[in-house]
């Protein structure tokens, strides 16, 4: 199941953020009377279709896997938050229908009417992300029900279940991260194309595209960092076991240190650099604040300290994806030639990968940090799994299929961006 989620997440990043970027770019082209911006939006929309097709299939597979592989999980969550699954599907349908309308009407509607068709696409994509992430927030902070005699949720309050303490933090952090990662991936693509293209005219407009995307990536990256800080405080209050596991904090303590790097060995993180009191500050804006350790929880309910790697990976990648565009933009306004030097462009290409990796690490931290529970405090992952042994077979088949899909997807995207990315928008 992890392979499906990890694979699908790549397409969620683009599925959620790209419609918004395309819509913004098209509006910018209309308002400022720049046909080149509209042409670029059109090229990106072609890439969106390819990403959408693969993402829709992997999304369908995940939906079915939830039902088939994790029946007890679905049995448990469908009562309190099942409506979110239905609404997510509806939002996806709105997105799919209007994406078709949008693609077919490029030369047929007036620009402003065509742009209006882009609104339901990003409303649908962000709406579906909101509803499905709400289910995940429920898994982290289950509420809005009582447990009946049969062990199933009863006395259900759907709103309370969906709008729980995790909802605002997790939704804002994840959706902003998708926008940041998407902008960075496209910036990386254009940085790569910039290095490959020798034509001065191509390079000139590509440089502008890179600058625009770097600004979007930087601003959204700063927003993600701010929201990440809020997430840290949320974790310290509502999911302290996750924060403690991410930092290998075994004992509750004041002036808790932040561990950077290191190797996880059993119940401890060795060889890490400890920065005194920083974890307390991150948790409560107070260097002397008390942070809960894993000793507060029974041993069998503690998550693995392996999440420390994901937390560190996410933060490190986050710092680089803010840092590189910042340096690039600084150089662009100070020494333009240096901004487009090969080392800087390679750094921008790396930003694309780092953006996706940071998002993947974030979700790995969220999911593995909740283990051994799938619905915290109520249902363990082992209990949720089906008893049918056939599930093991698909553990081998699906990763191979995903590999084939991603290879083909990248090949087609490469051709689309290489061809249309230059010809449509530059001439």
């Amino acid at each position: 199941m992890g392979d499906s989620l990890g694979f699908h997440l790549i397409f969620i990043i683009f599925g959620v953020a790209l419609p918004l970027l395309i819509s913004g770019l098209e509006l910018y082209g209309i308002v400022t009377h720049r046909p080149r911006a509209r042409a670029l939006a059109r090229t990106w929309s072609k890439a969106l279709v390819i990403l959408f097709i693969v993402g829709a299939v992997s999304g369908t597979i995940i939906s079915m896997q939830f039902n088939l592989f994790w029946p007890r999980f679905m049995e448990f969550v469908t009562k309190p938050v099942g409506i979110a699954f239905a609404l997510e599907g509806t939002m996806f349908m709105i997105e799919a229908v209007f994406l078709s309308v949008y693609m077919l009407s490029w030369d047929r509607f007036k620009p402003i009417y065509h742009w209006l068709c882009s609104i339901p696409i990003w409303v649908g994509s962000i709406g579906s992300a909101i509803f499905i992430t709400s289910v995940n927030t429920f898994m982290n902070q289950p509420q809005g029900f009582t447990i009946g005699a049969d062990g199933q949720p009863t006395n259900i309050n759907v709103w309370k279940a969906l709008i729980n303490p995790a909802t605002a933090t997790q939704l804002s952090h994840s959706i902003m991260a998708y926008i940041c990662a998407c902008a960075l991936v496209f910036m990386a693509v254009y940085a790569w194309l910039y290095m490959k293209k020798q034509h001065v005219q191509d390079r000139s407009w590509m440089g502008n595209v890179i600058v625009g995307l770097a600004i979007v990536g930087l601003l959204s990256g700063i927003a993600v960092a701010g929201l990440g800080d809020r997430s840290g405080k949320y974790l310290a209050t509502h999911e302290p076991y996750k924060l403690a596991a991410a930092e290998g904090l075994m004992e509750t303590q004041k002036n808790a240190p932040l561990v950077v790097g290191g190797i996880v060995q059993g119940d401890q993180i060795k060889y890490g650099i400890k920065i005194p009191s920083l974890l307390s500050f991150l948790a409560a804006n107070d260097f002397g604040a008390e942070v809960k350790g894993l000793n507060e929880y029974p041993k069998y309910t503690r998550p693995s300290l392996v999440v420390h790697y994901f937390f560190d990976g996410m933060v490190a990648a986050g710092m680089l994806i803010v840092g590189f565009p910042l340096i690039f933009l600084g150089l662009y306004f100070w020494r333009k030639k240096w901004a487009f030097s090969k080392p800087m462009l390679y750094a921008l290409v790396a930003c694309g990968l780092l953006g996706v990796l940071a998002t993947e690490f974030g979700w790995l931290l969220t999911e593995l940090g909740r283990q051994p529970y799938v619905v915290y405090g109520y249902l363990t992952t082992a209990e949720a799994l089906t008893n049918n042994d056939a599930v093991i077979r698909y553990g081998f088949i699906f990763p191979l299929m995903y590999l084939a899909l991603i290879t083909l997807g990248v090949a087609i995207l490469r051709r689309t961006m290489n061809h249309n990315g230059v010809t449509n928008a530059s001439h």
Partner: protein
Amino acid sequence: MPVINIALFLVMLLFGCYASLSAFELSIALLKLLPGNAKLADKNKQYFTPIWEITNVFLVFGFTSFVVFFNRAVVPISELVLTVLGVGLTALLIRAAVVLYGYYYKNSQGITTANILFVLSSITVPLSFTAAGITLLTGKQFYCNNMGWSLILTSVAGLLTLATSFALYIHRKDQHIFLYQICMFVALMYSILAAVTIQISTHSVDDRLISWPFLFWSGLVILSFITIALTVLYKKLQMLWMYFALLTLVTPVLLAFSNVPYLAFPNLQIQPSYGAEAYGAAAIIGLAAIFPIIALGFFLFTRLYFISAKGKR
């Protein structure tokens, strides 16, 4: 009409929508097998639009609605149907890979490995769901009883009839004689196999099979003979595909209602399986409220799809 019946009707209608749409997709896959030129390839390519991803939405909707409404039956049913639906999921992934491959090699017409895989995967996905439905209807996997075999073969013939007749309709100017003969053959096979299915069911002592939904379905199957005859007589292909689209749409609904009081024969009854008291009615009304937006999108799409690009700005 109790909410529980509305829930069953909605779920099965969604599966019916999926089955019909997947047959249309199959028609595109079949057309790719034809030895063709760039014009044919271009025409086929225009059918690859994101709108087809809505087919998958119906699948997800159907399955999710089933799980939400009948969540007390999720555990036993998922274990019953996991194997057959697992095959369907694998086919879905293969199909997606082949679609992407088709994007990459734009003029790939003819009998190639990729196109054959495209056809096989396109038919395997709906068939895996049919097989799951048969398990719920008969209490056994489809390959373990005569009724299962006859139903799955009927489904194959039905899907192929709808797919070939639709393919012929959208390429009606090209006069594909061989495809026409295949279409008529599978249409007749459908009627014969469906008649065999009804015959097998009448030998059963089970009361479910003499319920009105089953009788109604039997009537529709008999009507398919007349539709085929009229199609041949008047050469109106749209009559055939429209009738089979309707038949494919209503078959899951009618067979599921003929299975009542069971959700999964013989151990799971529908009443105790229903677990959506919390918001069953609210979910139905809420979903219905969003349909106007989707309808607007469909309206715009169909308008755009059929108008010429020139002079419409």
